[in-house]
């Protein structure tokens, strides 16, 4: 047990890497999800088709496979293109590869969340807003967005919880996150059970904290609505 205390600062650093990876991936996923939802809502068949292909492929492939594919294959692909352009080659870091893979996966799930939330806004409100003379951006910003956030929040929270757990697979390509540091410490001290238990505790801490924060956010988004309960 005293080993655990010695390694606690290292584990804390790994935990922060895990949280950072999850947060940056969520930002990318949110961006892709918004683009995807806009694509699904668009009238252009090409945009709709592209989004459909994107989400179908992503939903069919395990996160670990995609992480490996992007880390090893993406590197080769990128450098082939850069080489053809005469540019110097680059190294894809495990963190960046992880963000791209996790961001792409959960972007596909958020596409559906955002689309559902967009469809939940009554169409008549859009007509009313344009009748009042609101242009596209003010209409989106003041009429659609607040209601989309409210409707999307529960699904967004669920996706976040799943995404956090998904980040663990990035340790397989050598990222020194919570799992990575704990694996090393477990080998060095010959106490792997203690350190992997600490890993579980570290993830439970994120899950528990997120639940609390999400509850606050949902209450905020619900203000102004009457509730039966």
């Amino acid at each position: 047990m005293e080993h655990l205390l010695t390694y606690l600062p290292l584990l804390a650093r790994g935990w922060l890497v895990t949280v950072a990876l999850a947060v940056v991936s969520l930002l990318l996923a949110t961006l892709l999800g918004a683009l995807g939802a806009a694509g699904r809502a668009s009238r252009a068949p090409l945009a709709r088709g592209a989004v459909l292909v994107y989400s179908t492929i992503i939903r069919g492939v395990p996160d670990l496979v995609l992480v490996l594919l992007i880390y090893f294959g993406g590197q080769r692909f990128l450098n082939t293109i850069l080489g053809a352009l005469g540019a110097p080659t680059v190294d894809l870091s495990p963190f960046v590869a992880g963000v791209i893979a996790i961001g792409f996966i959960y972007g596909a799930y958020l596409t559906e969340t955002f689309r559902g939330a967009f469809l939940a806004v009554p169409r008549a409100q859009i007509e009313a807003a344009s009748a009042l003379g609101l242009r596209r951006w003010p209409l989106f910003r003041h009429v659609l967005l607040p209601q989309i956030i409210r409707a999307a929040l529960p699904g967004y929270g669920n996706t976040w919880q799943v995404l956090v757990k998904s980040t663990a697979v990035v340790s397989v390509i050598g990222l020194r996150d919570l799992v990575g540091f704990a694996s090393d410490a477990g080998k060095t001290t010959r106490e792997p059970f203690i350190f992997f238990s600490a890993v579980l505790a570290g993830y439970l801490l994120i899950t528990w904290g997120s639940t609390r924060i999400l509850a606050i956010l949902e209450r905020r988004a619900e203000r102004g609505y009457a509730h039966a309960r």
Partner: protein
Amino acid sequence: MRVDLVLRNWPLFAEGVWITLQLTLIAVAVGFAIALPAGLARARRAPFWEPVLGAYVYLFRGTPLLAQTFLIYYGLAQFGWIRSSWAWTFLRDPWWCAAIAFSLNSGAYATEIVRGAVATTPKGELEAAAALGLSPRQSTWLVLVPSALRRALPQYGNEVIFMLHGSAVASVITLRDILGAGRTLNAKFYLAYEGFLTAALLYMAITFLLVWLFRRLENRYLRHLGAAR
């Protein structure tokens, strides 16, 4: 793209598909065996079991499958008394460790699915069963369980696909499942992505097969709810 190498090494992938299917089916089957009693107990808030099952579900749903698998495969080896017990025959074997970890994981998710389906069973169904003179035991097994399991089918389909994708973690603890086959191919011929791409396509194919299968099952068993597609 070296398609020839993939095609020439098809037995590697065939064996990988077999191992992936084994692990997925065992996890889902054992998980179901856990989830049926556990879900019923949770829906009824069984006095003694509620905190135990609540902790089990929270722990396994709140942490990554990769970390759970590591805890069982690497972690348990820390203890001498486990290594000298009869259980070591199984726990030293990565296949058994993966099977145990995946089963416990799937059991936790499935418990919540069963709990939800049981809890949302219309009261009228049970009142009708009582009015027909069914004993509490009969109304549970002849009315409540069949009704709840049918309604749980769509979510259960998602859980099976989730487990299929999660089973790729087995390749990290040296098993040659689909992803393991891809990694072996890449290592053997110094390839960057061919093995991963083949693995991705195989997972996608099995995913679509499962989606199709569950859609057929839903058409059959949810027809009375008018949800047939």
